[in-house]
C-alpha cells in the first residue's frame, strides 16, 4: 500500500495512468435514456473531456465509471480489468465534485488524508502524503484551514489533492470549475492540467463549457442524447466537426442559406465543399465559422450578396467579433481588433467566405448564430 501511494508523489513525471474502456454503456431512468450505447477508450495518462448540454449523459457516464451508479448494459474496463459490478469504494477512482464536497468538519489536510485513513495507512504516512498533495496543488500553507475558511477555488484544489492522495487509477472531474468565477476558473483549469500531467493519471473531465473542454483536454468527446457525437483532439472538434450538432455546440457558427448541387453548396455566390457526403441537392443551411468569413474592404454605395452593414462589434481582446447585416441575414465574422476598428458600426463592407468544407443543417431556420 505504502509503495503504491508513494508512486504518485510530488515530482512524479512519468505517466502512471491506465487504459480505461467504456463499452456500449446504457443507462435508463424510467422512460428517459441517459446513456445510449456509449463506447469510449481512454489511453493511459490521457485527459478526455466529455462536453455536451445538460441531460446529454456526460455526468451519467462519469458516475458509472466511478461506480456511483450501475449500468443497465455494457462493460467498464480499467487497466484491462472488468470493474462493471464493483462498488465505488473498491474501484480506486478519485473524484472531484462540482462543489461543496469537502467534509466541513475536517481541516484541509484531514480531508486530503481521508482516503488514506479509509485504506488504513499509518497516521504519520497519511500526514506526510497529505502534505505532499497540498504542496502539489499549492496549498501547503492552508493545511489547517476548514472548508469554510477557504475560497471556492482553494476548496476545489483541496478536493483535487484529496482525490489524488489515494493514487487513483482514474481521476474523475465532474464540472469542478462550474461554481467558480471566470478568473478563478481559468486559473484553476490550468492548474488541474498541470497537476494531471505531473501525476499522469488517466482523467475524465465532464463539462458543459466548451472553452474549458477545448483548453484542457487531450481529446474532447461531444455528447448528445446519451451518444458520443464526436471524439477527437480539440482542434479537430473545432475545425472539422463531424456533425451539425458538434459544429453548432462547439464555437460560434453562422447559419447561412444556400443551395446544394453536385457535392458542394453555393452560399451567396461562393461555392463551398461539403463535409457530409449524403446531402441531397436542393436548398440547405450551411454552417460556417466566423473566422471563415473575412472582410475584403469598404463597399460604400456598392451592392452584392456579401455586401452588408456593420451593426455591432464585440471587443474580445486581441480579436473582435463583428456582426454584419446582409439584408436578409446577419453574419458574424471574427477579425483582429485593429482590423475591426477600421470598420465601425454603420460602415458598409464587403465580405468573403473562405472555401473550407462546411457542414449542412437542413432542418432548422437560417440566420441564427449558435
Amino acid at each position: 500500500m505504502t509503495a503504491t501511494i508513494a508512486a504518485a508523489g510530488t515530482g512524479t513525471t512519468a505517466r502512471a495512468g491506465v487504459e480505461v474502456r467504456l463499452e456500449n454503456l446504457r443507462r435508463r431512468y424510467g422512460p428517459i435514456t441517459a446513456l445510449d450505447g456509449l463506447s469510449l477508450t481512454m489511453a493511459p495518462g490521457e485527459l478526455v473531456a466529455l462536453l455536451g448540454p445538460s441531460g446529454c449523459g456526460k455526468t451519467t457516464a462519469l458516475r458509472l465509471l466511478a461506480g456511483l451508479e450501475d449500468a443497465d448494459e455494457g462493460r467498464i474496463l480499467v487497466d484491462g480489468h472488468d470493474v462493471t459490478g464493483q462498488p465505488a469504494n473498491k474501484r480506486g477512482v478519485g473524484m472531484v465534485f462540482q462543489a461543496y464536497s469537502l467534509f466541513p468538519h475536517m481541516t484541509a489536510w484531514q480531508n486530503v488524508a481521508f482516503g488514506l485513513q479509509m485504506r488504513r495507512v499509518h497516521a504519520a504516512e497519511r500526514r506526510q502524503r497529505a502534505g505532499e498533495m497540498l504542496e502539489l496543488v499549492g496549498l501547503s500553507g492552508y493545511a489547517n484551514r476548514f472548508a469554510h475558511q477557504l475560497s471556492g477555488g482553494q476548496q476545489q484544489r483541496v478536493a483535487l489533492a484529496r482525490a489524488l492522495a489515494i493514487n487513483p487509477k482514474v481521476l474523475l472531474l465532474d464540472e469542478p470549475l462550474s461554481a467558480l468565477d471566470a478568473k478563478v476558473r481559468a486559473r484553476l483549469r490550468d492548474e488541474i492540467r498541470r497537476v494531471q500531467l505531473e501525476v499522469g493519471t488517466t482523467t475524465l473531465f465532464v463539462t458543459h463549457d466548451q472553452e474549458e473542454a477545448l483548453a484542457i483536454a487531450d481529446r474532447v468527446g461531444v455528447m448528445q442524447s446519451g451518444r458520443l457525437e464526436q471524439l477527437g483532439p480539440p482542434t479537430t472538434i473545432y475545425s472539422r466537426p463531424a456533425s451539425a450538432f458538434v459544429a453548432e455546440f462547439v464555437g460560434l457558427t453562422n447559419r447561412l442559406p444556400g443551395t446544394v448541387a453536385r457535392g458542394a453548396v453555393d452560399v451567396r455566390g461562393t461555392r463551398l465543399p461539403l463535409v457530409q457526403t449524403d446531402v441531397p441537392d436542393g436548398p440547405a443551411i450551411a454552417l460556417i465559422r466566423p473566422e471563415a468569413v473575412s472582410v475584403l474592404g469598404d463597399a460604400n454605395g456598392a451592392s452584392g450578396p456579401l455586401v452588408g452593414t456593420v451593426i455591432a462589434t464585440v471587443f474580445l481582446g486581441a480579436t473582435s467579433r463583428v456582426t454584419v447585416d446582409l439584408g436578409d441575414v446577419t453574419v458574424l465574422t471574427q477579425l483582429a481588433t485593429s482590423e475591426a476598428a477600421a470598420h465601425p458600426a454603420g460602415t458598409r463592407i464587403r465580405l468573403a467566405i473562405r472555401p473550407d468544407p462546411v457542414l449542412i443543417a437542413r432542418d432548422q431556420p437560417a440566420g441564427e448564430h449558435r
Partner: protein
Amino acid sequence: MTAVLEKSFVDTAGRPTGGGRRLPSQWLAVIPFFFYLGIFLLLPTLIVVGGAFFDRNGLGFSNLLIMNKPFVISAYLNSVILAAITAIAGAVLGAVLAYAVVSGNPNGVFRRLVTSACGVLAQFGGVTLAFAFIATIGSAGFVYLWLKQHGLDVYAHGLWLYDLRGLELVYTYFQIPLMVLVFLPALDGIRPQWREATESLGGNTWQYWRYVAGPLLAPAFFGATLLLFANAFSAYATAAALVNQGSVIASLLIANTMTSEVGLHDPGIASALALVMVVMVATVMVLYTVLQRRTARWLR
C-alpha cells in the same frame, strides 16, 4: 451656491440631530415582540430572582436553603430523570423518523404529511394531551379496555399512567415531533456528495456514518436533545393535569409552593425553586445554542 445649499440639506436631512444614528426601520416591527418578551419573560424572571433572595428578614440566601430538603431534591431528581428519559427517547425516535423523511422525496406527500403533523403535535400538550391519554389508555380509556378484553392488561402492576412512568410516555408523545422539526434542517444539510466522496475514497457505509455524517450531525443531535430536555424539564400543564397527588417533579412543586393553602405555601421559596429551574434551563439553552452554531457553520 444653490447646489451647495441643496447638497448640505440632503446630507443632513437623513440623520437625527445630535449625531446619533437612526434606528433602522426593520427594528420597529420587532418592538412589540420585545415588549411582549419584556413583560412576560424578563419581568417574571426578575421577580423570581428578586423573590429568591428576599425573605421575611430582607436580602439573604435562606430561601435557597430549601434545596437541601430531601423532598425538593427528590422532585428535582425526578424532573431531571423524566426530562432525560423523554429527551433521549424523543431524540432517538424523532431522529429515526426525520431520517425516514429526508430519505424520501423532498417534495413528496410523506414529507409534507409528517412535517405538518409534527408541527401540530409538537404543540399538543397540556390538559388536552393529558385528556387524550386518559380517554385512550386511562383506566376507563377505550384502548385500555379493548386491550384488556383481548387479554392484555397494561395496568396489571398498577395504574402507572398517573405517575412518573405515565409522564414519560405522555411527554415522549410531544418530544418526538419536536425532535423531527428541530433535527430535520440538519439532516437536510447533509450533502449527497459527502457520501459519494466517502465511497470514492474507499469508505463504506459504516465509515461514512462513523467519520462523516455522524460527526457532522452530532452537534445538531445533542443540541436538539438538550432542547428536548429543557422542554420536558420545564413542562407543567400536562403533569398538573395527569398527576393529582404530590409534587413528584420540580414544576409541580413550584406550583404547589406558590398556591398551596396548607403549610407549604411560601412565595419566596417558590421563587428560589423557580430560580434553580431558570438557571438549569438557561444553562441547557446556552449549550444548545453553542451546538446549533457549530451545526449551522458545517451544514449551511
